[in-house]
């Protein structure tokens, strides 16, 4: 049976990313530890992403509230608006949308940066300068992204809920205390923790795919563009796959 070229390319890519991730774990625990570069990457990946993540989170909360309101009024359950928005944001929309924005900003920047370093021989120059480029470039970025995305998700959730609070108050008057009481009344740890934990996997996926695409970039400057582009596309698809798996796991273990 003939296997199509696309299938072979897909399997090769999947195998390549898996092997790359395996190498990450192998190198992660082996000295020397690039602490200074890791801290710098936390600043670049985490802190510098915050304004964009915060803005999108705020708009997301506001718009979601304004869109849901007419439907809830129709069914006479307008009072449930904070609870509904809270559940939606914390459990699903917050982590997934934040991860997608993160993939667009960080995944593409890692893919382009490493791709550019590859084609201009900067990665080889690091190797020659007594540096393990995989540890210096890949391990630090992947670790920083894995740890920073959950923090960004928490911040985005908080800002989204504030946006939602403002949205609720556009057509009515709800106190800050009442809004948050309603939100936290329905939220349990079983809502927050699975969403929080899956965002570690989202962060890892975005960075490892960005690094893989950049690290094996070729075809000169054209290849750099392709690396950045495919880093975002593949990472976005993987985010949805991880989300699907995470939902199944929480379902199986009755964490809902």
């Amino acid at each position, binding site marked *: 049976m003939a296997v199509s070229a696309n299938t072979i390319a897909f399997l090769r890519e999947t195998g390549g990313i898996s092997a790359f991730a395996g190498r990450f774990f192998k190198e992660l625990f082996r000295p020397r530890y690039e602490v200074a570069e890791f801290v710098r990457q936390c600043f670049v990946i985490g802190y510098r992403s915050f304004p964009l993540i915060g803005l999108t989170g705020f708009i997301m909360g506001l718009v979601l509230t304004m869109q849901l309101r007419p439907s809830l009024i129709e069914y006479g359950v307008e009072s449930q608006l904070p609870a509904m928005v809270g559940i939606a944001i914390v459990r699903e929309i917050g982590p997934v949308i934040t991860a997608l924005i993160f993939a667009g900003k960080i995944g593409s920047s890692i893919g382009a940066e490493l791709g*550019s*370093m590859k*084609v*201009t*021989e*900067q990665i*080889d*120059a*690091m*190797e*020659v*300068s*007594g*540096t*393990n480029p995989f540890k210096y470039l890949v391990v630090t970025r992947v670790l920083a992204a894995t740890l920073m995305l959950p923090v960004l998700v928490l911040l985005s959730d908080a800002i989204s809920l504030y946006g939602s609070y403002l949205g609720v108050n556009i057509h009515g008057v709800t106190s800050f205390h009442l809004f948050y009481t309603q939100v936290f009344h329905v939220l349990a740890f079983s809502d927050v923790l699975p969403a929080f934990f899956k965002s570690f996997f989202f962060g890892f996926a975005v960075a490892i795919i960005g690094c893989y695409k950049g690290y094996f970039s070729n075809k000169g400057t054209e290849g750099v563009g392709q690396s950045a582009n495919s880093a975002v596309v593949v990472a976005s698809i993987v985010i949805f796959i991880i989300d699907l798996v995470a939902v199944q796991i929480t379902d199986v273990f009755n964490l809902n």
Partner: protein
Amino acid sequence: MIMQEEAGISIKQTKRLLEIMAVKHLYKSFGKQEVLIDFNLVLGKGENVVVLGKSGSGKSVLIKCIIGLLEPDKGSIEMFGKNIPDLDRDELDKIRAKVGFLFQSNALYDSMTVRQNLEFPLRRHWIQMEQPEVDKLVLEALTDVGLAHTVDKMPSELSGGMRKRIALARTLILKPEIILYDEPTTGLDPVTGKEIIQLIVAIQRKYKSSSLIISHDMTCVRLAADRVVILVDGRCYAEGTFEFLQTSNDPKVKQFFE
């Protein structure tokens, strides 16, 4: 193979030099494409050897095998009493601290200033130094290439020739015993290219280092080479001084000098 000795002209000076690097029976292929076939090369102490070849003849692959960026299929590369392909990363790093490499594309780190670019190899090779000593070395290397005033500039603010000089300064900062140059004049105009070659020769004289220069630029060969090795289809095709090879009637040698 055309050898100067076979033509009755011995390379006396080269023979007297202490051997600092020896490439023996080197083979490298990518899939079915054989890039280097039974390649041999000896570099003497204080000698400048230019490997001349057309694009795609395996010159860059050779130099990357020598520095350990590519693993050869067969053969040995001996430097400082060690065989490069047998070394693990730590041992290789110790050798690399004594070998400078000037990349074809300069390979300056875009996100770092000139100072940080030059400090990078010092810091990464675990060389214990106080900051004033590091600053002195950085300034000395930059002065050698005539660009001391660019110390706090970003690479993107510099011209192509200046970037090449900065890359050369970064190569010099560890005071290497061997310097490998991969196409040092590529992408430069003839005047700047000639200046870079003159700088390479001046540096070699100052530091008493040995140089292996990969090039297809005849000005570079004429000005810098003590000895020339012509690489054709992955094999060492001819070897001798510039003057000897210039007078060769062999068509494959002649094409480089026409």
